[in-house]
């Protein structure tokens, strides 16, 4: 590290051309290393997932009868939340015509496809019999099932977003707007259904109610804003280019969206607790597990601190213009939101269904610890996003927007 710095510092003044070339070659090498690293993560995740399928989820995964949904479900939710958010925030520009947002459109749509693919990657290894799903979702659909709607709509959403991206690349903006609109509709419908997967389980008090679909859409927008700012900044670092003024303006307004949505989610969170504490024992126990129980670190430090409050302060401080600060805030948000999803999924199952019957068999909260296999699959999904993002930057030349 120190060697590199000193070489640059010494050589650049004397041989500016050679110095610039060195930085370029260093950047290219770093790019290749990053691509290989993410590719390895995908391979390792895939291997772990296939191995888990071979030995069975009972042995490979940390989930149980009592906590049937683990980190793979929460990571799936995390990825599709991000994807939907990327789609929604970017659609303000390229679908709904707010010009300020247009410069971020292409990359956002591309990343929306990348993150939904990562979601499908993770869920493929989570579902016990994914191949049956392909068959029976079609020939034996249950129209009252949120899982059915969510799966089907997200399938359509991925196609719409991919087609929209290709149209944007080819410069067919009019058709792209139409397909983009269909993507937004499918995305919102799919994502609110994902919220309803949890919200319609009346046996699970922590989730039950109309709150979930609404909360999911709002938190998608929050995640989307963070993802756009973070990835746009990283992309320009990779490509070694200055950010154009139009893009800067786009990130400034995206930051405003981010600030607004953090405020909305904080508002939702506060009311979820206040209302929850007026409820039954089981719900109060779930809320307590977040406030003072085993999920307190996740909740206060990761969700509230890293995920919302600090980014909110940094966003405000940046005034939407200090890009490194905004990128840092966005990275923290993405990290915090990952645990927000984790807590949402696990806490919803942690309270035994028989808790209020005071049976000795279920005295307290259930525990769940992600297994090595599960963590590997999660890393595989993260690697997939990284890989597709990096490849996309090179293949599509930094997702530049031509004047139109």
């Amino acid at each position, binding site marked *: 590290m120190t060697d590199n710095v000193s070489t640059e510092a010494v050589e650049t003044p004397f041989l500016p051309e050679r110095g610039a070339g060195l930085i370029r070659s260093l950047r290219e090498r770093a790019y290749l290393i990053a691509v290989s690293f993410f590719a390895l993560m995908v391979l390792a995740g895939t291997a772990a997932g296939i191995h888990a399928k071979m030995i069975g989820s009972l042995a490979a995964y940390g989930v149980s009868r009592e906590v049937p949904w683990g980190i793979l479900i929460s990571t799936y939710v995390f990825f599709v939340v991000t994807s939907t958010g990327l789609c929604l925030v970017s659609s303000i520009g390229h679908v709904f015509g707010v010009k300020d947002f247009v410069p971020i459109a292409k990359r956002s749509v591309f990343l929306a496809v990348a993150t939904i693919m990562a979601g499908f990657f993770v869920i493929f290894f989570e579902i016990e019999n994914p191949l049956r799903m392909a068959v029976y979702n079609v020939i034996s659909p249950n129209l009252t099932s949120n899982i059915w709607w969510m799966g089907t709509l997200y399938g359509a959403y991925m196609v719409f977003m991919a087609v929209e991206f290709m149209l944007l690349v080819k410069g067919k903006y009019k058709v792209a707007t139409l397909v983009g609109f269909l993507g937004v509709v499918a995305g919102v419908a799919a994502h609110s259904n994902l919220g309803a997967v949890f919200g319609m389980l009346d046996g699970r008090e922590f989730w039950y109610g109309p709150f979930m679909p609404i909360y999911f859409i709002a938190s998608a927008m929050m995640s989307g804003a963070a993802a756009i700012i973070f990835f746009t900044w990283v992309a320009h670092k990779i490509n070694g280019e200055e950010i154009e003024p139009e893009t800067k303006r786009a990130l400034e307004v995206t930051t405003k969206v981010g600030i607004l949505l953090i405020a909305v989610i904080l508002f939702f969170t506060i009311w979820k607790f206040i209302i929850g504490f007026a409820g039954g024992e089981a719900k109060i126990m779930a809320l307590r597990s977040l406030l003072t129980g085993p999920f307190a670190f996740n909740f206060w430090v990761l969700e509230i601190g890293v995920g919302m409050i600090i980014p909110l302060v940094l966003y405000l401080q940046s005034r939407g213009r200090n890009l490194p600060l905004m990128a840092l805030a966005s990275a923290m948000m993405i990290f915090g939101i990952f645990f927000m999803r984790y807590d949402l999924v696990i806490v*919803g199952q942690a309270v035994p269904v028989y808790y209020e019957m005071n049976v000795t068999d279920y005295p307290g909260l259930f525990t769940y610890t992600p297994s090595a296999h599960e963590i590997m699959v999660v890393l595989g999904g993260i690697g997939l996003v990284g890989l597709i993002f990096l490849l996309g930057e090179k293949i599509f030349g930094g997702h530049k927007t031509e004047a139109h």
Partner: protein
Amino acid sequence: MKQSSDQPETQQSSANTESKETAEGRKLLEIERRDFLKLGLAVTGIFAGGTLLSAVSVVDQVFASKQDFAEHYPYKPHYSMLIRQDNCIDCERCKEACAKTNDVPEYGYRTRILEQVHPASLGRTTEFIPVLCNQCNNPACVRACPTKATYKDPQNGIVMVDQEKCIGCKTCMSACPCNDRYYNEEKKSIDKCNFCYDTRLSKGEKLTACAEACPANVRVFGDLSDPQSDVYKGVHDIEKAVWVLRPETGTKPNVFYTKG
């Protein structure tokens, strides 16, 4: 514990209603009376007040017509179980018989026995509560299943699983308010109690394996649509309190509990 505290409350509220002497009050009362009759013995579904099901012995007065009766018990036979909770001694023979009959692996169960301790109780302080799939009339699992792998049998009302269609998303496990489902690795499907339909009932047996194995006659199994059956008589006995598990989730169980 909850039950005893809810009961006086219900009585109190009906007493309040009766005290209203206005015409409006009487009208309300009339509506309430009719509603109550409609509720009456809708034990398969609606529960009246608190966690207790109001049981009425004069069945014929409640069901005005045969059609009403069929609406309350839409299946024929309408398989149901009445659990005489205080008889259970936790010998777990039901669990063993179930596992043997239905190939239930070590890591799973279709039925189990919960233990409730009442330290302040006089005399006996421990009670055992056998639990199994409630074969609900409004099953949360069936609504949630994306591929109709789990479904309500149109003839007998048992909540079945078509193993071939199960994708293993485990939404039904999360949806079940009573944790009565598990994923069976060997069957590559969710597995649950089906009142021994494939292993016994469809072969002409009259009882489930658990009901037959029980030495204390805890599990009264039978056809709720047959007024001559023991389960029907037990559920409709005015002398006894009858309840279901987690009625607040609105799933309308077909497994009932009683004691005394």
